[in-house]
């Protein structure tokens, strides 16, 4: 029997490759159910989350917020202005309703409004309020802001799987990131818990640009 090194190497290579490919295919298919591994992509580019600012922007700012969270709303006008000034920022407002039923309803209605192109309008109307809200107040504010809340609710229900999935994902991400509450910002790849004033926000943006 003559076994040459070539035979051995070829055999080993074949076996190794087959093992790797077979394993990858086998386990890869088992993975379809989605291991809960989260990547930064999942956080920065959730396809279901509406995007404000410049959707093609180079830098992404994520804010986990609640429609009843006072400091989220207090800083929102400034945040929007800075995002507009900078020009190339994608702003992802991630609904993380932590203040109970009115917050959940608010998120549902605003996301529902997204189906008819009214996301930004609805979002801004609620973010302009300054107090805690009741469910009736949520409807009232949205109605005053030109949103048909019945239609928005129907639209939300029609795509319930998508929106509930998004909300659940946001909550899970917040937990995985160790966020304690709202607001919490992710700018570039850094987490900033709590409200940011304009100075700190601009510094955070500058740092993110330096880092990238």
């Amino acid at each position, binding site marked *: 029997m003559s076994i040459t090194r070539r035979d051995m190497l070829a055999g080993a290579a074949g076996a190794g490759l087959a093992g790797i490919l*077979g394993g990858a295919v086998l386990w890869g298919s088992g993975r379809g159910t989605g291991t809960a591994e989260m990547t930064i992509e999942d956080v920065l580019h959730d396809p279901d989350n509406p995007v404000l600012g410049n959707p093609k922007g180079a830098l992404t700012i994520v804010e986990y917020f609640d429609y009843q969270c006072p400091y989220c709303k207090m800083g929102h006008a400034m945040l929007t202005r800075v995002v507009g000034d900078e020009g190339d920022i994608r702003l992802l407002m991630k609904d993380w309703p932590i203040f109970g039923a009115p917050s959940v309803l608010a998120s549902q209605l605003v996301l529902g409004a997204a189906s008819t192109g009214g996301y930004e309008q609805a979002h801004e109307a609620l973010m302009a309020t300054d107090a805690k809200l009741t469910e009736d107040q949520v409807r009232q504010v949205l109605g005053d802001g030109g949103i048909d809340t019945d239609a928005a609710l129907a639209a939300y229900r029609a795509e319930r799987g998508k929106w509930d999935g998004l909300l659940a994902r946001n909550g899970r991400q*917040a937990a995985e990131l160790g966020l304690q509450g*709202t607001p919490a910002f992710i700018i570039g790849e850094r987490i900033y818990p709590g409200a940011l004033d304009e100075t700190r926000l601009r510094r955070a943006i500058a740092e993110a640009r330096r880092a990238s």
Partner: protein
Amino acid sequence: MFAFLISALWLLAGFLTAAQAQPLQPEDAFALRVSEAEDGTLVLNWRIAEGYYLYRSSFAADAGGQSLPLSLPEGENHEDPYFGEGQIYRQDVTAKLAHAGQPVTLHWQGCQQDGICYAPQSVRLDGDGTVLADDAVASAPGWSPRATSSREAGAAAGTPSGLVLAQDQGLVQGLAARGGGVLVIAGFLGFGLLLAFTPCVFPMFPIVAGMLAGQGKTLTARRGLALTGAYVLAMAAAFGLLGIAAAWSGANLQMALQSPMAIGVIAVIFVALALSMFGFYELQMPLALQNRLGRVAGRRGSLGGAMLLGFTSALIVGPCVTAPLAGALLYIAQTGDVMLGAAALFALGLGQGLPLLAIGAFGPRILPRSGRWMEGAKRAFGVIFLGFAIWLAGRVLPGPVTLALWAALLVGTAVFLGALDRLEGDASRNRRFGAALGVLLLFAGLMQGLGAALGAQDLLRPLAPLAGRAAPLQTQAQFAEVTTREGLDQALASASGEPALLYLTADWCVTCRAIERGPLADPAVHAALADVAAIKLDVSTFNAEAQGLMQDLAAAGPPTMIFLDAARAEAQGSRLVGKMDSAALLASIGKIAR
């Protein structure tokens, strides 16, 4: 080494978020103290940090799905329009709760002034007011996400098993890893250098030496370096591909690489290599191939040949080093970062190849000249390769069979060393040394053979079956074994009130065997586990159930140890993944023990 990597990453993660003033942890911002009044009323006192406040309307208590009346003092009516019409408490608030006689869950929520509004907080109290989560709060300086999942939104931080996982895995680690990619890569380079001195990499030395020898007398140092460099780069590239596969396939690549099939193939390859070392046949690059490489494109052809050789060598070595690599692959799989995975394993391959570069640079000059000495060295390598093959096969073969194989190897080696030869009076000193060593090996081999016949499992205690049951059993921690989520729930339920250790393991998990023989057999660990419900989650059969279980636990694969306190919340920073020692295990147990 790997532990160092992880801790370095953690330092980095800490830095990333600590670079600025942090809001307090919610349990520090709102510290709860519970006492019992004489009439059985529970007195609940929250000490509120300066600059923080609690919402009066957010306080609630419930038991068994029923909400309980909570008597609260009047709060501060705030002028600030942002707070709405509600009331808040600053500094301190005391609430009273009538004796419930059953476990009660308390809820509260508050904010840091001008900072952050916390997700709802909650805690479970025993019927007599003992805070069930106290352990967790005391032992976990980090935030326990117990309270995060806003029930309305259905955002599930808890798992279907009702467990609460510490959130110190996952994305933050990924972020840190990206920030600290250079560190990771440097670490893997060093790790590779260490691996270069394991038997896994030994087969490469004769391959490289053969490649250089094929160049004949024209070999210069530069040429040798170029050839070896090409070889090493190609090998590292193959490892890089392994890294990509690991990152891409999730945790499961190492499962494939450690399957009985893969282990069998590698063991056979090592036996073949060993036989060639013994001179049964010569492993040489076939002449035809050598000629073609030399003729077709001169130097460039040879470089290509070297690269081909390097790439294929990695395929031999790759699966061999996955045992020590299990932790690294798990880590890569967890980050899911393909670039990092590729770069890290490329660095690992490079590290393994560095010693080979020395051969290339100095040429065959530093290799021992052929002769008696070289023959001896080759035989020694052969024995090492055979031993390695048995060690590998031992992962999948029954204990007694492994012992029998060791017996055969030891006895065979002993005979070749001359243990059974008669020494003449004028025998040389070396010969006598060899014979003495041979006799020792012969004795060890006979012991192993005897052990095999007795059905012993442990190489180091072949006669354990004779010594009675007491010794080995005493030092083995007792685990309840489960394979399904229901099993886990039952096991946890039957140990309610006790902290629990979940140990994710599998038959094919090589590192797990090392853990079981090492830290888990340590009497100190055994003692520490006395008050802990130890549950073994066996995912040997990697079906949907096992995958679901792993997903629930956010575990990438075995070995993973998860430490739950009595309230079934994972202690912050306690999780152990991959290889571990007794100290790490004891530290983690300490985080959940009362």
